[in-house]
């Protein structure tokens, strides 16, 4: 019986994959919050010269350690001034540039290194895989904070040095994840099919493998960006990262630390912004993993 009005014959009218992705993104509050905050802070960082009310380097001994507005300060310095009389809001805004720049470039460098290693290991297997796995083990055994501190101290703490050191140290997770993803993808039939029609290795890697592991790469890039930002802040806090007078949030916490007893906001504000940025990037990364994962977390 083919009676179209019979409720039991109704066909499954499922949503398309694209509809489902859109629905997942819209339904994922964490992802939306993360993207929103990261977008806002990126916007602030780019427009820092326009948005900052003062020169972040301009010292004024007459107006040192003025409290923020909500603690009885004036709108001239909405978040107060530091121990050298520099406008705290302006330093915070320029600090977003430092954090985002270091996070993005370091994640990019380590992403290039780690992806190359991971894809090579996963694709070629055998000896290449053994060497890469060994290098990952060696890298994991090195205490990251200590090595980064030592190298930055020896080479001198400029922005470039910090970025390069972090970029050269944080490739481990890229290598681990990309190796596993490549292993999985290169077992699929379409890779065998590409090989069987004589496609070259670079071509297979670029057209068959990379597009299929790109989701995972994006997720790791965001998570490692957060990692790099936290590490830079820790290095600068310890006085062996970005050097004064560059406005780095970690450095601001470190400078405020001595006045913490009397002016805790000097520590609270830059730390809170740092926390917020890292939280937002992590939410974005976790969210991206959730929405792009084949089987979604319930």
């Amino acid at each position, binding site marked *: 019986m083919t009676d179209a009005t019979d409720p039991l014959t109704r066909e499954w009218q499922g949503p398309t994959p694209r509809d489902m992705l859109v629905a997942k993104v819209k339904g994922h509050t*964490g992802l939306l919050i993360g993207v929103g905050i990261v977008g806002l802070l990126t916007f602030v960082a780019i427009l820092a010269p326009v948005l900052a009310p003062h020169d972040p380097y301009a010292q004024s001994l007459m107006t040192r350690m003025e409290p923020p507005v909500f603690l009885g300060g004036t709108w001239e310095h909405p978040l107060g001034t530091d121990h050298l009389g520099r406008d705290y809001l302006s330093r915070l805004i320029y600090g977003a540039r430092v954090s985002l720049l270091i996070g993005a470039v370091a994640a990019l460098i380590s992403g290039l290194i780690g992806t190359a290693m991971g894809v090579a290991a996963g694709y070629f297997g055998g000896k290449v895989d053994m060497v890469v796995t*060994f290098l990952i*083990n*060696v890298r*994991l*055994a*090195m*205490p*990251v*904070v*200590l*090595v980064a*501190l*030592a*190298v930055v*101290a*020896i*080479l001198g703490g400029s922005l470039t040095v910090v970025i390069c050191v972090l970029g050269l140290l944080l490739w481990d997770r890229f290598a681990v994840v990309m190796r596993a993803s490549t292993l999985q993808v290169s077992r699929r039939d379409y890779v065998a099919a590409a090989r069987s029609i004589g496609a070259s290795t670079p071509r297979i890697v670029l057209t068959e493998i990379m597009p299929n592991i790109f989701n995972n790469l994006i997720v790791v890039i965001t998570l490692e960006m*957060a990692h790099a930002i*936290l590490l830079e*802040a*820790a290095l600068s*806090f*310890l*006085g*062996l990262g970005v050097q004064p007078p560059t406005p780095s949030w*970690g450095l601001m*916490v470190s400078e405020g*630390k001595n006045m*913490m*007893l009397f002016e*805790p906001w000097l*520590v*609270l504000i830059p*730390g809170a912004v*740092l*926390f917020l940025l*890292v*939280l937002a990037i*992590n*939410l974005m990364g*976790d969210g991206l993993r959730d929405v792009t994962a084949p089987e979604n977390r*319930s």
Partner: protein
Amino acid sequence: MLPFILKRLGLALLVAFTVSFISFLLLFLSGDPAAALAGETASGEDIEAIRRVYGFDRPMLVQYGEWLVSALQGDFGESYYFKLPVAGLIAERLQVTMILGVCGISFALLTAVPLGVAAAIRPNSIVDRVALFMSVAGQAMPSFWFGLILIVVFAIQLGMLPPSGAETWRHFILPTVVLGYYAMPAIMRLTRAGMLDTLNSDYIRTARAKGAGEGRVLFKHALRNAIIPVVSLAAVQMGFMLGGSIVVESVFALHGAGYLAWESIARNDLPTVQALILVFSMFYIVFTFLADVLNAWLDPRMRSA
């Protein structure tokens, strides 16, 4: 199981040697260690003299060989700053760091495992959401900032705990929380995922069909299987934590090995830094090796293999 242990031991040794070579190379990263040692005001003759005394004029591999041989005998040279044997300096400071590490990982396990189990029993419940929030927040929290906040609140405002130092057990509470909170999210997430996975497995249904009570099902049948990967994660985290103790020790002025590392880096005391990097790496290597062995022993499928 023995072949597995031997293979794993071989890898650990190989990694250890590679790490030792890399930390040795650090000395040469600065260009001329003799010049660094002599200081900025030294004359060319002084630098040459130091070069000869310390043997920096010989081939690098020879120097590495010598350094390694003495390091294996527990001799890491003399600190540029303290003019004392590095090994003694580190040994003296290591106790504080070890106490901190053990307390930190215990704190992390004692909070993260129950929370992970509770979250897995009732997914999407309030407990699950709180656990998720704590782990997301924990991963984003800069540990130095968290430490400072705890000092402001508990030491300064409430006056309950000392802000710094290492004299009594009360000095270790805040650093333990900060260090432990760093390892908590990963352990919590793995426990939750593992419990969710095992609770959906067929053998849990078998246990229920036997008439086992909920407590027995959860702890004897599910947790026993879910905890296996948590053990190795905890060991890895312990290794990371010792390396990360440098930040916590500097915030709380705990004079442990991490604090020594910080001081030595600031003072350009390269032999001490080298030795500390090596020591922290060795801890990581030993912990992960032990974790893998323990893991294999806990999992019958690997034990009999």
